[in-house]
């Protein structure tokens, strides 16, 4: 179990955040939310409810229209050094080998070659990809590409992980296995995670808290605290408690889909 600390400063704080696009469409409206260190918060909701937009706002890739976002008390731009973003597709650069992809961030920071090599090797080992270090992305399966993407995100020793439907394109078995691997790393590294998914079961399995968003405009509809025991394994998925929490989340989610 990953424990949250009693740090008075929340790791991530959204204060009455509204995001309006140039043509006037409102992606999210008046969202206030705090995430403590070590929490694993998943956003669930219909398409267009602003799940991915929220991650972009927290990362500073997109500016807020109204309100404020703070990451460990700083602006998202100033906090970028402690945040890693994992996208829906692996976004590996096809002309670079796996190890070159994983070491991209350190290379852009002009890190010392030897230190980079050692760190990359360690991260590849962590995600069990050492045997394909010299391969190009097109030689990897979908699951391996996503593991490489996770290794790349971990190289910079982030405190916060933003994950935008990272396993959406994978088959169910691969997704389940990667979910378990992710939780193993989460327990070791003690990150704070914001995760986006369309899968209720995935959200319940991974999270300490699930935030259900309603669409048009995007806003927080419900929050569910997930009280499943840690560590979470294959047995967790078969437990009655898991089934109950999935049923509860599904029911609330169905509510926001109705007009």
């Amino acid at each position, binding site marked *: 179990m990953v424990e949250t600390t009693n740090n008075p400063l929340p790791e991530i704080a959204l204060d009455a955040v509204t995001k309006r696009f140039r043509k006037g469409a409102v992606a999210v409206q008046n969202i206030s939310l705090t995430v403590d260190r070590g929490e694993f918060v998943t956003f669930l909701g219909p398409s267009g409810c602003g799940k991915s937009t929220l991650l972009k706002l927290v*990362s500073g*890739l997109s500016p807020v229209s109204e309100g404020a976002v703070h990451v460990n008390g700083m602006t998202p731009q100033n906090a970028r050094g402690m945040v890693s973003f994992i996208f829906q597709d692996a976004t590996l*650069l096809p*002309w670079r080998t796996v190890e070159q992809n994983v070491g*991209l961030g350190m290379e*852009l*920071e002009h890190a010392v070659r030897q230190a980079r090599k050692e760190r990359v090797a360690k991260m590849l080992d962590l995600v069990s990809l050492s045997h394909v270090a010299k391969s190009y992305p097109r030689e990897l399966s*979908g699951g391996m590409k996503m593991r490489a993407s996770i290794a790349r995100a971990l190289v910079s020793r982030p405190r916060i992980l933003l994950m935008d439907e990272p396993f959406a394109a994978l088959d169910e078995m691969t997704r389940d296995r990667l979910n378990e691997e992710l939780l193993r790393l989460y327990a070791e590294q003690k990150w704070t995670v914001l995760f986006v998914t369309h899968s209720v079961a995935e959200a319940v399995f991974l999270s300490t808290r699930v935030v259900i968003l309603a669409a048009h405009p995007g806003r927080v509809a419900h929050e569910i605290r997930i009280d499943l025991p840690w560590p979470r394994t294959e047995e967790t998925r078969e437990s009655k408690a898991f089934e109950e929490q999935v049923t509860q989340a599904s029911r609330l989610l169905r509510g926001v889909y109705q007009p």
Partner: protein
Amino acid sequence: MKKRWLVLNSIGLFACLVGVWASVLAFAHIPAYILPGPIAVAVALHERFPSLVNSLWITTCEAAGGLMASIVFGVAIAMLFAQWRGLRQLVFPYTVLLQTVPIVAIAPLIINWISAGTFAVTVITFIICLAPVIANTTQGLISVDQNQVDLFLMYKATPAQVLFSLRLPNALPSLFTGIRISAGISVIGSLTGELFASSTRVGEGGLGYAIIYANNQMETAYLFALVLAATALGFSFFFIVMFLEWLALHNWHESTRPQAAD
């Protein structure tokens, strides 16, 4: 095995065409000054070989010089277009003019400005080759996945790092498409340039000039040999570019090697 059969078939087809060519001449009694036979062409090739090689070398230098200059300037201009959207929107439409202006119309102007000779022909070739390189490279540089750009922004990458570590490698396949098009037209451009702007001094004319000379002298067999040499030159350029493209992309780009994943 399949490749060897393909090569053998190609050689066989060529031999058949030469055979048909010789047979038609034998039966139709066409005079040699209108259509020389393959043997006459081979004899002309043998007798005028040093002169032909000299012309071929001059055209090769002009075509390669124009092509390489178009790659250097084309990529530099495309990089400016990729970095400054306003500049691209303002200037890019004018690059289309490079393709639409008939080279025969501006060749006299170029001769006026820099006088006839190898350099003038190189400049004409450069003008012809420039537009495909600019258009294709610009397209490749700006067609980058937004998530990849975001990834670089998360790493606080500088604009130069985004350009050289992301946009430029991403544009390589498009750049090679542009170079392939330009390589094909560089030889045509040089030959056309030589028709108007080549040096008339002995041994400085290139294939285009030699073709006009052979035509005026009714040396049709040598004219055929020159046309064959020009075709071989165009073919060589194309294959050199294809090889370089394979070298640059074969490890990672889908166009060069089918690869199953999963």
